[in-house]
């Protein structure tokens, strides 16, 4: 085991982590730990754009953007956080341009902007051009630009280091503070303890809880799982976004930009069905509404294809040259993976699990909350792993690339400023015991259950029971399966017993996080007897502001040293509590588009 000492440790090198690193490394000694090479992070998969009310092509202002964000999130958004995000959006985009990001340009040479779902002028009047973009690889350009600037600034990376535990300890002043993290080095199998005054979690999402997803294989919710196991809460986990247009059967994303550029959804009869569900903004309604409408078309027998199990995204009326200029990558996906030529044929699509609105709760300074009011000194979170909450119960397209830049930046500054003044906290005794127990427990087992079987069972039950439509019965079924999987996981076995590049072992550990998070998602969804944003209950179809306009906070008892089997450190019981939503200027209204 090796011990390292840094003022600030950032966990994750996607957009949020690297944006934080650019700030933090200017102010304090900073290490970035990441399980993937920075440029492999899933921020690079983002396509459509990043919204900011630059007003480069038509009238716009950040207050309209805030309203859209709050309404899009079905009033579960903390409005102070949304105001900050939408106000700082403008500088966030300009900063990226100055760092070198090659945005598409207007005829005057300014940053070009296009329409995106749920973004409107003057509180819902009509769609507005707010999304700044670089063709349909905006995330790629953000990730590359941030990495390039990290190279310029000589940021120190520890690549292919998996952070598997968070350390806290009582500081010299008697307050429990952040002490560091424990990481597993993929190349050697060695454990590393990083002592740090502040830690920023920027580990991204958890889409692999589901089977059909736009998320990478590596998006397994590690950061959420690590914090949760240490007794910290998770907020609003039941809100998961299903993006309308995944390639049917595969889940690979076709950006909403396809509809922003004029694409139309049709059912088997060729009908533009969104006219029935959202008469004003039709195909550009927020994602939860479009996804449910699509699923409903299929359920009512109007799906396309021999099994009538998808709908069609029609781009055939667009000029091929326009498609090539604005949507080159996603049309290529349709050709490569489905063999469909989008110039002339509509593309089969179906909703795909896309984005975790919930996560590790933070305040607007990105400090992690240990309950409804108190923070853990020295611990920060930003990006998809966090819940500030700017997305409420449904994130608007383009608001995540914005979130990672605005709150990533804030986290980097806050973590470094804290580290400059804060005292060092001793490492707890045997800091590595939990990770060592986890790793050795799994590696040492000679026979048992295969990772793939458990993961498949988990993902299938989540797709079947906790997806676009949910009921009490479906979720109880899922919980039954999850309960069983927790037990079976204690028996999970890997074939690779080696130390070098043991990805077999890490897949098993990642599966542990997935099972744990699936339970939190489902329990939160079961308790939320209403429909709001991405969470739709067929047995409670209406939004219920009296009882449920509040955030869910899930807790479990922290793992302890007495824990008998650290290789399956699940809690017997998860408890739910609630936290008030911050409302500043927008009172809840019915959400119609």
């Amino acid at each position, binding site marked *: 085991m090796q011990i390292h000492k840094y003022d600030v440790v950032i966990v994750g090198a996607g957009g949020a982590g690297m944006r934080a690193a650019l700030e933090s490394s200017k102010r304090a000694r900073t290490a970035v730990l990441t399980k993937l090479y920075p*440029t492999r992070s899933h921020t690079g998969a983002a396509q459509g754009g990043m919204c900011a009310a630059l007003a480069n092509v038509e009238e716009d202002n950040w207050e309209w953007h805030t309203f859209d964000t709050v309404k899009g999130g079905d009033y579960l958004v903390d409005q102070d956080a949304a105001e900050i995000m939408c106000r700082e959006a403008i500088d966030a985009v300009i900063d990226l341009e100055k760092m*070198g990001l*090659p945005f598409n340009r207007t005829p005057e040479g*300014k940053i070009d902007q296009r329409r995106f779902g749920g973004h409107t002028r003057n509180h819902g009047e009509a769609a507005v051009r707010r999304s700044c973009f670089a063709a349909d690889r905006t995330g790629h350009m953000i990730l590359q630009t941030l990495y390039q600037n990290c190279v310029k600034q000589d940021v120190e990376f520890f690549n292919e280091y998996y952070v598997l535990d968070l350390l806290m300890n009582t500081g010299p002043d008697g307050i429990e503070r952040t002490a560091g993290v424990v990481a597993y080095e993929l190349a050697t199998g060695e454990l590393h303890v990083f002592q740090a005054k502040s830690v920023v979690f920027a580990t991204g999402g958890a889409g692999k809880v589901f089977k059909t997803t736009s998320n990478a*294989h590596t998006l397994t919710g590690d950061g959420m799982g690590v914090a949760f196991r240490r007794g910290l809460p998770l907020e609003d986990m039941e809100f998961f976004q299903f993006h309308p247009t995944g390639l049917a059967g595969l889940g690979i994303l076709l950006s909403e930009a396809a509809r922003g550029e004029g694409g139309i959804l049709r059912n088997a009869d060729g009908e533009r069905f969104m006219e029935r569900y959202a008469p004003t903004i039709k195909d550009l309604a927020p994602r939860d509404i479009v996804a449910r409408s699509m699923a409903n078309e299929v359920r009512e027998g109007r799906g396309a294809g021999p099994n009538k199990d998808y709908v069609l995204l029609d781009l055939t009326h667009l000029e091929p040259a326009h498609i090539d200029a604005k949507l080159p990558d996603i049309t290529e*996906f349709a050709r490569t993976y489905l063999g*469909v030529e989008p110039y002339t*044929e509509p593309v089969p699509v179906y909703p795909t699990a896309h984005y975790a609105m919930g996560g590790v709760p933070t305040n607007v300074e990105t400090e992690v909350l240990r309950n409804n009011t108190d923070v853990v000194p020295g611990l920060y979170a930003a990006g998809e792993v966090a819940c500030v909450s700017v997305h409420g119960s449904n994130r608007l397209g383009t608001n995540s690339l914005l979130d990672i830049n605005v709150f990533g930046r804030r986290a980097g500054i806050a973590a470094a400023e804290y580290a400059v003044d804060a005292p060092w906290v001793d490492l707890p005794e045997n800091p590595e015991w939990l990770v060592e127990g986890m790793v050795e427990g799994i590696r040492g087992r000679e026979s048992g259950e295969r990772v793939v079987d458990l993961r498949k069972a988990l993902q299938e039950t989540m797709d079947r029971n906790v997806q676009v439509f949910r009921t009490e019965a479906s979720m109880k079924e899922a919980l039954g399966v999850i309960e069983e999987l927790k037990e079976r996981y204690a028996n999970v076995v890997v074939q690779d017993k080696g130390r070098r590049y043991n990805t077999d072992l890490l897949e098993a550990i990642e599966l542990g996080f997935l099972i744990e998070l699936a339970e939190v998602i489902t329990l939160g969804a079961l308790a939320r007897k209403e429909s709001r944003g991405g969470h739709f209950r067929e047995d409670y179809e209406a939004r219920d502001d009296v009882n449920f306009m509040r955030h869910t906070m899930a807790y479990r008892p922290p793992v302890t040293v007495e824990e008998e089997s650290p290789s399956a450190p699940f809690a017997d019981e998860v408890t739910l509590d609630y936290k008030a939503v911050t409302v500043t200027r927008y009172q809840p209204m019915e959400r119609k588009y």
Partner: protein
Amino acid sequence: MTATATQPSSDEQKAGAVPTFTVTLKVQRYNPEVDEAPHFETYEVTAHATDRVLDALHQIKWEQDGSLTFRRSCAHGVCGSDAMRINGKNRLACKTLIKDVNPDKPITVEPIKGLPLEKDLVVDMEPFFDAYREIQPFLITNGHEPTRERIQSQADRDRFDDTTKCILCAACTTSCPVFWNDGQYFGPAAIVNAHRFIFDSRDDGGSQRLEILNDKEGVWRCRTTFNCTDACPRGIQVTKAIQEVKRALLTSRF
């Protein structure tokens, strides 16, 4: 396939609608903890028409031999994790459909060449990223910053569009015979990323980058074999970009 052909979502339907077939994969294996040298092992997997080579590798790892090791993340050709030699050609496993690589014969899968082998299909990427970092892959500007965005015409923006697509997968660099023989050569990917900045109208660092590439391990080592262009999974005209950098060096115009 037409849009009315099937693309069902659940496994059973998929099996019913899309024909499955058996393919053989010959995969290079090497575990530094036990093997003295790399060797090949053969596996049989059941594939669907829409499956990629990455799906086949996963099937082997998940159902036959968990120790088979390779990198992957996004699974749709955007993160650059899984460049490998498939039937002797550098490709991304996640972007290569099995049906497109002649599944009637065994499909050979090897690690990319020219970088130190770590285990099975995993190589040490550090030398590759070192070369990338050396060409100063970031915007360099003189003078004071404007308060708003810099102005750039769409035509100027288009000038370097092609080379912004690079995902640093190393498929090009590790397909280059010059790089195989001389690991010091910057390699196509680094030059592509230099091009991305040299031809960006906002950038003032062109001359210093060109000086770096004028080095004996720089662009002049390129022998225009076009392997890199063929290998690029993003369709970047790599050889053309290198030619443009060479021309910029000769004419000092960019």
